[in-house]
């Protein structure tokens, strides 16, 4: 029996483990390329400081990477352990990018990370740089394939339902790969990773500059982060807008919820800058709107309307009623007792209503006996298709706000880098340092909007979350969730301890004698500042 308790616990466990995993992923994605840039500087100039930078930031990269690997395996296991019906129902499509991710990306990344750490004495400079690049390429390719898989969950293209195998089957692989939703998500997500890593390097370099130590090392690191970060922040905003555009076609519900658009407004719709969305009354209080902007971002036209929540829900009511017919016909087709003649008769309504099958399945949360379905029940199931607006609305706005703050930070950091005066701008260095946790916040908010906004579906319009879970007992879920939370809290404590320890030690931890207290004072000394 799939109780709401079981479904909620399964969701909570997935959310906890996925969001935890994503504490480590963005830094891996971005820092890998920052290492490539630093090492390329070393290969081109032959200056030791760039090699030291690659090794020191590489050490922090390794501490982070270990937990990325640890928590990543959980994600692969969990589709099978906790989402067994999902795995059966869409494994034909969803499994492929996951397997290709292993073959094409994980092997590359994980084989070369070993050589990155241990190959310094055994490889020529050029070869080692190639190794670092392949490691970065591997980690970014893995993001590509997992976002292709995730993009398909948001926008299930290239596949059809088969009643014989009782699952979705792949018919067009390239449609899945070049799914615009997936591609926009990929570039937005990796850019977010680049921003995260840039803030990380910028913040820790600022710490050294404020402390007045390892100045040459910190200055060069700061510059690399400022330039890379500025490019990434531009990209994350432009491509975030791109995913806003694609979301209108494939996921109108998500867009309506994150913008608090309760009804369809005449085009071009206004953008709500501020409001208190009220999920009970289904309206916004104290809304502050900017005319035209939403219509322009969402549709890139002045005449196209963006559907609001009430209209979407009304549409979904019809689709649920139609889907209920498909579900009933499918039960006859799947029955081991039904006669061939009965099956032939059921085939006709099934084919006619097949497109709404997923919507019909939404009713399973309330009843398995579809002869009992009432208009009230259909209305209830249709209400379920709208995620709660207030958390979507605010998460999205906070993420966007942070995005623009990164743009400003990196814009100024780059400007003062070019003017070579950032060392004296203690306000900028402090800002960078105190901003250290914010890119993680922005990343998690982004995932929250994307995945919470997809509810009540695991596969949008195809498979309700309620049906996707494994047939486990809530007791098992309490046990495993407790285990994950316990393990992860412990591991996070250990990771943070090492990360802070080595960040504080700075490049002196390489033991070369060139840095820290044992090093000769380097030129242009800034005044140490208390922070």
């Amino acid at each position, binding site marked *: 029996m799939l109780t709401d308790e079981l479904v909620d616990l399964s969701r909570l466990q997935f959310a906890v483990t996925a969001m935890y995993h994503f504490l480590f992923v963005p830094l891996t994605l971005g820092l890998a390329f920052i290492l490539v840039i630093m090492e390329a500087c070393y290969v081109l100039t032959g200056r030791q400081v760039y090699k030291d930078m690659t090794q020191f930031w590489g050490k922090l990269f390794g*501490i982070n990477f270990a*937990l990325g690997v640890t928590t990543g395996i959980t994600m692969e*296991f969990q589709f099978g352990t906790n989402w067994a019906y999902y795995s*059966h129902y869409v*494994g034909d499509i969803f499994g492929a990018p996951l*397997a290709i991710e292993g073959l094409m990306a994980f092997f590359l990344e*994980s084989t070369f990370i070993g050589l990155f750490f*241990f190959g310094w004495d055994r490889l020529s400079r050029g070869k080692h740089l190639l190794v670092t690049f392949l490691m970065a390429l591997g980690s970014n390719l893995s993001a590509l394939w997992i976002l292709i898989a995730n993009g398909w969950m948001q926008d299930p293209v290239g596949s059809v339902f088969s009643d014989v195998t009782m699952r979705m089957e792949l018919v067009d692989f390239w449609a899945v790969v070049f799914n615009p939703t997936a591609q926009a998500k990929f570039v937005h997500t990796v850019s977010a990773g680049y921003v995260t890593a840039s803030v990380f390097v910028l913040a820790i370099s600022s710490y050294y500059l404020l402390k007045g130590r390892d100045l040459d090392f910190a200055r060069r690191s700061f510059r690399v982060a400022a330039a890379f970060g500025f490019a990434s922040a531009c990209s994350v905003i432009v491509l975030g807008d791109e995913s806003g555009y694609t979301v209108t076609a494939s996921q109108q519900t998500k867009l309506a919820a994150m913008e608090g658009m309760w009804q369809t407004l005449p085009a071009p719709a206004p953008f709500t800058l501020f409001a208190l969305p009220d999920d009970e009354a289904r309206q916004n209080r104290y809304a502050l709107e900017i005319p035209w902007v939403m219509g322009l971002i969402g549709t890139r036209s002045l005449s196209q309307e963006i559907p609001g929540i009430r209209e979407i829900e009304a549409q979904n009511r019809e689709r649920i009623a139609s889907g209920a017919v498909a579900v009933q016909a499918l039960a006859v087709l799947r029955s*081991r007792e039904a006669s061939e003649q009965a099956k032939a008769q059921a085939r006709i309504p099934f084919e006619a209503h097949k497109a709404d099958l997923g919507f019909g399945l939404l009713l399973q949360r309330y009843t398995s006996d579809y002869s009992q379905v009432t208009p009230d029940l259909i209305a209830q199931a249709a209400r379920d298709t709208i995620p709660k607006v207030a958390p979507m609305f605010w998460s999205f706005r906070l993420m966007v706000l942070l995005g623009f703050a990164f743009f400003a930070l990196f814009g100024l950091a780059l400007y003062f880098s070019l003017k070579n005066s950032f060392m004296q701008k203690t306000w900028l260095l402090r800002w960078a340092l105190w901003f250290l946790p914010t890119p993680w916040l922005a990343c998690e908010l982004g995932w929250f909007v994307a995945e919470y906004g997809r509810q009540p579906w695991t596969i949008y319009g195809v498979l309700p979350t309620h049906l996707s879970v494994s047939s486990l007992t809530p007791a098992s879920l309490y046990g495993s969730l407790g285990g994950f939370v316990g393990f992860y809290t412990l591991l996070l404590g250990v990771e943070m301890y090492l990360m802070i320890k080595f960040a504080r030690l700075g490049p002196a931890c390489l033991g070369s004698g060139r840095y820290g207290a044992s090093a000769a004072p380097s030129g242009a000394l800034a005044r140490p500042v208390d922070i």
Partner: protein
Amino acid sequence: MLDYMTLKLIWWVLVGVLLVGFVIMDGHDMGVGTLLPFVGRSDPERRVVINTVGPHWDGNQVWFITAGGAIFAAWPLVYATAFSGFYWAMLAVLWSLFFRPVGFDYRSKISDPRWRSTWDWGLFIGGAVPPLIFGVAFGNLLQGVPFHFDDNLRSTYTGTFWALLNPFALLCGLLSTAMITAHGGHYLMLRSEGTVYQRARRAAMGFAGLALVCFVAGGLWVQLLPGHVITIAASPNALPDPLAKTVALVPGAWLDNFRQAPVLWGVPGLGIGALALGFAMALLNRPGSAFVASALAMTGVIGTAGVALFPFILPSSTDPSSGLTAWDAVSSHFTLGLMLGATLIFMPLVVLYTSWAYRVMAGKVTLEFIRQHDRSAY
């Protein structure tokens, strides 16, 4: 494009290849992890042991992840049913694997002996528990797993975690742990010298002998178990539907495939012969040959289980006709073809650059090396 039945057969072989790849590659670093607290008695010795696999364990672990992904893509029903049914066993594997990345990377970053010793035992758990559970899982496959499907192919598992730990399954678990630990011992001989080498050699010989005894005992035992036989079969070319067949239980039927094609006895023969050869080569101080022998031995042992079960992958004890086979638990014709293409492109590349990585890092890890690389080595 290949016909559906051929592709299904190829994928049965390919999943086998990936599993064998996993035990050869990740198996040797798991074996090294299991042996770590015993062959390394001092901190520098333990660092020698860890650094023999330091640059490679991460890439090796991808064999495991890719095998999981390939089962997801090629046999989604097996992935769904096995992972959710063996819920606590899978979590035990997962949680023991947690110790590996952090154990390897964090252990030597702090010099406190308690810190290091804690992670050493973590690496031991991460090395010993997964092979044990995989063996136990195979032991349960041969006895049937208590699950059934409803009309919509939702699986329900009706067993418990503790029921998995029955005598036959524990024997298989012991076999799997012993052969993987022996494999780790052989690898360690290749990459170390002095006392570590000698201890690794003794361990490799002991565990190879133990694996041999367990394998033979398991072979005798399996004749007493009820095997699953398909009585009414759907065409292997048909669209996969695990509910379309009927299955009967016949004592000793797991040996039917060997009886019908006696050449297949060569597979368990390889297992026995290569385990013995691995023992002998370790005795003769020939670590290279010993490592190859233990790789072949594991191929033989896993192959034996696969051939015995064929075409079954996941037999059901409570509703035998729900049992999953290589014909009816598979992905669509299109997906199998696509994934075969992807494997043919990427697998040779992986083998190529993995070999290069091993070549770059070749040679013995010595105490001297640890002294010189105190800050950068694991």
